[in-house]
């Protein structure tokens, strides 16, 4: 970590000096960009209710209050919908339409009115009771599809109670702020956007959380998983939100602010410079060519992806299709999504990853698992759901008529799984053939290398597939036995651990020996510190968040392949993560001082 900056002499006594001390909170970079501004700590206010008896005279007034609260909650939700429709796609705004229907439910209205008259209890108490009753009924079904809807019921109940108790909506903040929250619901995120929010930071959430996805699609910097941000930061505190590095700097010193103003200027400057690289090929000065592509999940990202000079989509995640309903989308819905992304990227290719559910992603399990990361997830889920798997494979195949789709399976740990997945793939082809439905019969099939067993079996897999894509996020987790979601051991999660680098080398060398190509779609692919190393290891395709493409391309275009190979050899001789990172950082600083000032700033790599 960065050595502490000298603290300025206290001007307002000991208290101020303590409060204003600069602090760095570390999280995950969820959406790029850097901003400086005042914090707004958003606390999702839970509304509490107490039971109160009404006199006969109070009944009419209570009914009137309930009517007004319903109207107010309706107005709020309608506004959110209008805003969501303008800013987001129809899928995302459907969440809110559902909530409006719940709010205006005939049975709910009738029950509340009847109970207020007959039982003469306060409305908020009865609202609470009614919603708890519905939630209990949904939870009794033991079907995750239904029980997940209790979150919507909670959201609506809280909104109605807030309206009844005339609580001010916190989301209506004035001026430009960096919003700091424990977690952000879709409604929160959308509401904040009406207020020109500078950026977001949340205690919880991964880079695939709802808030992260929305922030990226709206190009607002965001840091997630910052643990105790809401407890540490107070509204009005000055913060720097670094969406590039995933850091929040609280009470930045004047020096740090100046440093970051410089960084913001450099970002603009570099962006302008990198814009000129968009149309140029990604080739080293000594003629070695690699592909740069983007990790993406929404068709509306395509324009941005292409504008960054991407050569296709190296990872098209499909989980978002099941995020809203918590269920599998129909074959037709999937077909529409896949063919629209394939057509908008044509002639560049799109690598579609089949549903990677479970673990920390989206789908709530029917049963709580002790070790979700080692549990029912990825290909395991889909092999247990042959009907749904087949539907996805058919949808991908039908969409492949344009000829630019490739497919890959996540979390493969043994050959039997790959064979089973391929059997479904072949069966899907046969079904389509029987129906006279056209598809690309030559579609390339690959697997993600994320499990150590797949690394060790790389030679076996290389014979059975057309390509590999190394998913470094999970590979690091499994190789080092470090749960990505466990706060106690975040310092052990080291993507530049020597064993990770050796694993990557082994996978690339083995694939090349069998004439197959290797991509990498984990976060390392977009980390400039790893670029020279990965280039030198012989990686064929780098897939990353689209915003990093120009930077990575700039590095590759200025690095001789021969030099990168020698450098990789040197890195492979390191024995510890610290040693490795020192080597990566010093080489980076030496070769790319202008970029280093941006990425190595603030001690991220000063080990």
């Amino acid at each position, binding site marked *: 970590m960065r050595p502490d900056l000298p603290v300025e002499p206290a001007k307002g006594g000991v208290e101020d000096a303590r409060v204003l001390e600069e602090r760095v909170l570390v999280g995950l970079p969820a959406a790029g960009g850097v901003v400086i501004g005042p914090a707004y700590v958003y606390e999702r206010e839970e509304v509490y209710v107490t039971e109160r008896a009404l006199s006969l005279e109070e009944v009419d007034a209570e009914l009137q209050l309930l009517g007004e609260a319903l109207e107010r909650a309706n107005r709020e939700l309608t506004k959110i919908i209008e805003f969501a429709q303008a800013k987001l796609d129809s899928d995302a705004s459907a969440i809110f339409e*559902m909530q409006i229907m719940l709010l205006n439910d005939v049975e*709910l209205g009738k029950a509340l009115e009847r109970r207020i008259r007959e039982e003469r209890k306060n409305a908020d108490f009865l609202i609470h009771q009614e919603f708890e009753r519905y939630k209990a009924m949904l939870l009794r079904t033991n079907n995750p599809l239904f029980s997940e809807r209790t979150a919507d019921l909670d959201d609506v109940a809280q909104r109605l109670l807030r309206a009844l108790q005339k609580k001010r909506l916190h989301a209506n903040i004035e001026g430009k702020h960096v919003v700091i929250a424990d977690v952000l619901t879709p409604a929160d995120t959308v509401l904040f956007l009406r207020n020109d929010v500078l950026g977001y930071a949340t205690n919880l959430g991964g880079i695939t959380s709802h808030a992260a996805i929305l922030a990226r699609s709206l190009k607002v910097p965001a840091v997630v998983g910052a643990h105790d941000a809401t407890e540490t930061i107070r509204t009005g505190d000055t913060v720097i939100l670094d969406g590039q590095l995933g850091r929040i700097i609280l009470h930045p010193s004047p020096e740090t602010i100046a440093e970051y103003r410089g960084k913001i200027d450099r970002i603009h400057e570099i962006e302008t410079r990198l814009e000129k690289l968009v149309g140029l090929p990604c080739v080293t000065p000594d003629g070695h060519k690699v592909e740069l592509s983007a990790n993406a999940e929404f068709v509306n990202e395509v324009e941005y992806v292409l504008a960054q000079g991407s050569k296709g989509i190296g990872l098209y995640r499909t989980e978002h299709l099941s995020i809203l309903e918590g269920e*599998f989308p129909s074959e*037709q819905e999937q077909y529409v999504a896949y063919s629209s992304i394939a057509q908008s990227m044509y002639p560049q290719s799109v690598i579609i990853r089949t549903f990677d559910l479970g673990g920390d992603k989206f789908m709530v399990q029917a049963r709580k698992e002790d070790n979700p990361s080692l549990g029912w997830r990825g290909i395991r889920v889909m092999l247990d759901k042959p009907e749904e798997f087949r539907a996805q494979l058919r949808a991908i195949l039908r969409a492949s008529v344009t000829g630019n789709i490739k497919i890959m399976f996540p979390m493969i740990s043994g050959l039997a799984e790959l064979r089973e997945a391929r059997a479904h793939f072949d069966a899907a082809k046969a079904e389509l053939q029987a129906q006279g439905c056209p598809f690309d019969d030559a579609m390339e099939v690959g697997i993600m290398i994320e499990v150590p067993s797949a690394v060790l079996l790389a030679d076996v897999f290389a014979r059975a597939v057309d390509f590999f894509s190394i998913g470094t996020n999970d590979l690091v987790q499994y190789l080092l036995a470090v749960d990505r979601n466990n706060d106690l051991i975040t310092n052990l999660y080291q993507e530049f651990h020597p064993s990770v680098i050796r694993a990557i080398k082994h996978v690339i060398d083995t694939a090349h020996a069998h004439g197959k190509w290797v991509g990498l779609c984990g976060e390392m692919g977009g980390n400039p510190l790893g670029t020279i190393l990965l280039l030198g290891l012989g990686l064929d395709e780098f897939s990353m968040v689209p915003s990093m493409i120009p930077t990575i391309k700039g590095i590759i275009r200025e690095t001789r392949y021969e030099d990168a190979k020698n450098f990789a050899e040197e890195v492979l001789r390191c024995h510890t993560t610290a040693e490795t990172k020192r080597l990566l950082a010093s080489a980076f600083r030496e070769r790319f001082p202008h970029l280093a000032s941006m990425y190595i700033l603030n001690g991220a790599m000063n080990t």
Partner: protein
Amino acid sequence: MIEREVTIKNKAGLHTRPAAQLVKLSSRFQSDFFIQKDGFEINGKSIIGVMTLAAERGARLTLVFDGADEAEAAREICHLFDEGFGEA
């Protein structure tokens, strides 16, 4: 009063989207509309009622229509069930 038996055909059952579709459609009719399942009866114009019914694929439901436009309501709503709410 009209009674009709239907079976849920769509794979995910009466989850959010079909439930919303059903409520939107049934609310257009004047007639009362009830759904019976396993001895339960709920108001088919209530989204909360339809959701808490938690009807999964294969569930048999009795639909009851009662009112001036019951014939038309029965026809359109049964049709929605028959075509599996437009889902595979």
